[in-house]
């Protein structure tokens, strides 16, 4: 088995929790498959020397401000080695901004398996493009299964096993399982990436998004369900668990035309929002359910409470 690479997004000075969840799954895989586990991150250093046509330079012994704490955290989360790609381009979760720096890491390591946290900011832009670049299969929202011989299974039921040929990119869903932290010194390699945000893309402006534009997960509450305070409270807990907003139907005209393309749509009661662009649709109550992936029958309150207990027990 070659190397396993995990992309680490940063949330301020710390690793993104979803990236750490991917690192935890990668640790289990690397131990089971006998692979070396690399954690790679991209850091913006204004004025760092680089040129558009240069190849990456390896800086041995280089120190990046703030890297000690990251090194400690990634080591404890299971990384064998850390690769830091330094770029003079501001880091945005966009292939056009950091694709060049990420490509430097891929070229340096030539990994067989690359993991991203499914909810990490860069995953949706970098994950599939990484797959296309290394010619690998792409697994969406996978999790680790199995005992001693760990394998990955994605939401479509596809498996990735140790003996599989070819490269793969996996977006790991869920959160990190609790595991004992390690305390080891690990190597840090610093790569100075060639300059180069994609000049064809220019960020003109940004503004806060409406809840209806949420693309991760949404919990939609129908008017009937919203009449029960216990259901409203449990819906809020469920939304917190999946990291999405609660959309409440108002009965207005806009509701009748609302559509969601969030990856996960959980409809509680008679919701008006149409989840037709969502990858996974769950219905709780609300009458006959068509084109859904999962459905729990009424009464809503006990079904929702039992679902929450089952989810929290898995966490």
């Amino acid at each position, binding site marked *: 088995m070659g190397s396993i690479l995990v992309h680490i997004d940063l949330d301020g000075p710390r690793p993104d929790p979803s990236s750490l969840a991917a690192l935890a799954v990668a640790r289990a895989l690397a131990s089971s498959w006998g692979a070396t586990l690399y954690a790679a991150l991209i850091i913006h250093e204004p004025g760092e020397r680089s040129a558009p046509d240069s190849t990456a330079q390896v800086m041995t012994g280089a120190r990046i401000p703030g890297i000690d704490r990251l090194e400690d955290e990634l080591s404890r989360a299971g990384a064998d080695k850390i690769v830091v790609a330094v770029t003079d381009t501001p880091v945005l979760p966009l292939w056009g901004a950091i694709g060049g720096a990420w490509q430097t890491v891929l070229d340096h390591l030539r990994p067989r398996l690359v993991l991203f946290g499914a909810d990490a*900011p860069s995953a949706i832009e970098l994950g599939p*493009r990484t797959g296309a670049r290394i010619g690998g299969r792409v697994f969406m929202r*996978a999790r680790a299964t199995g005992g001693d011989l760990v394998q990955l299974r994605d939401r479509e039921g596809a498996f990735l096993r140790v003996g599989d040929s070819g490269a793969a990119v996996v977006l790991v869903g869920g959160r*990190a399982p609790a595991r004992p932290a390690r305390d080891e010194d690990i190597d840090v390699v610093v790569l100075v990436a060639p300059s180069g945000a994609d000049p064809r*893309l220019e960020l003109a*402006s940004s503004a*806060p998004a409406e809840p209806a534009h*949420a693309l991760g997960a949404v919990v939609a509450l129908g008017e009937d369900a919203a009449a029960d305070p216990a259901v409203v409270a449990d819906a809020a807990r469920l939304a917190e668990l999946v990291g999405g907003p609660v959309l409440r139907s108002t009965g207005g005209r806009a509701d009748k035309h609302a559509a969601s393309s969030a990856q996960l749509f959980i409809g509680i009661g008679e919701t008006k929002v149409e989840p037709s662009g969502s990858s996974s649709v769950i219905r709780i109550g609300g009458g006959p359910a068509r084109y859904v992936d999962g*459905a729990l029958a009424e009464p809503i309150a006990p079904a929702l409470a039992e679902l929450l207990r089952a989810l929290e027990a898995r966490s």
Partner: protein
Amino acid sequence: MTVAIWLGSAVPVRTIRWLDGALAAAAKLGPTKPTAIVAGDLGWLELAADRALRAKVACIGIATELSLDYLGWAQIVIAAAKTVEATTILVDEASRPERFAEVAAIAELLDAAQLTNVVSIAREGEVVRATRSAGGELQTFHVRGEAVIGLRIAGPKIEEYPTPMPSAAMKRLDLAALGLDANVLAHRAVAPHAPREPQRTTDRVADLISVHVSARAPRTGAA
């Protein structure tokens, strides 16, 4: 700027409103008439051609029984887009979950700029103004030159639509006409997804949701 729009290789999972929304967005981009590219079985080609015709978008249909991965379909899209000299390729990424990976594959093979999760799009001269949803933000980009843009734009709600008829307006091409070899493409073949029955027990539904649990969610301490 010449626009093509990839509608995919299979009928939308749940509704055609995202297909309609993507076609309407393409039609507004102009200045020349955009071209929809669609592949797969004949029933799907005729549905896609019918919706494209209603949106005033030209259509290229590639009939094939192949079931390919994202890199395989990307090769077909690129070959078809070259026939119309498209510089901007839009992708309806909301109608089927596997579609958004095709945005990346097309962009990678073309070495084009890539933008995913775009919720509105407009043209300003030779610049495309695209707004994408990212986390809690709507980011607006100016896009110049060759680009592949994944759209998540819903059309009007539609309860049912007329049965599509074979369309004379659809330009039919086969893989050989695109310079592609089906035997070579078959290296990217995948087994089609079997339809699945909905899960109806608490444990099974919790399993489905568990891969969406946020890594940021507080732990309850439940065993």
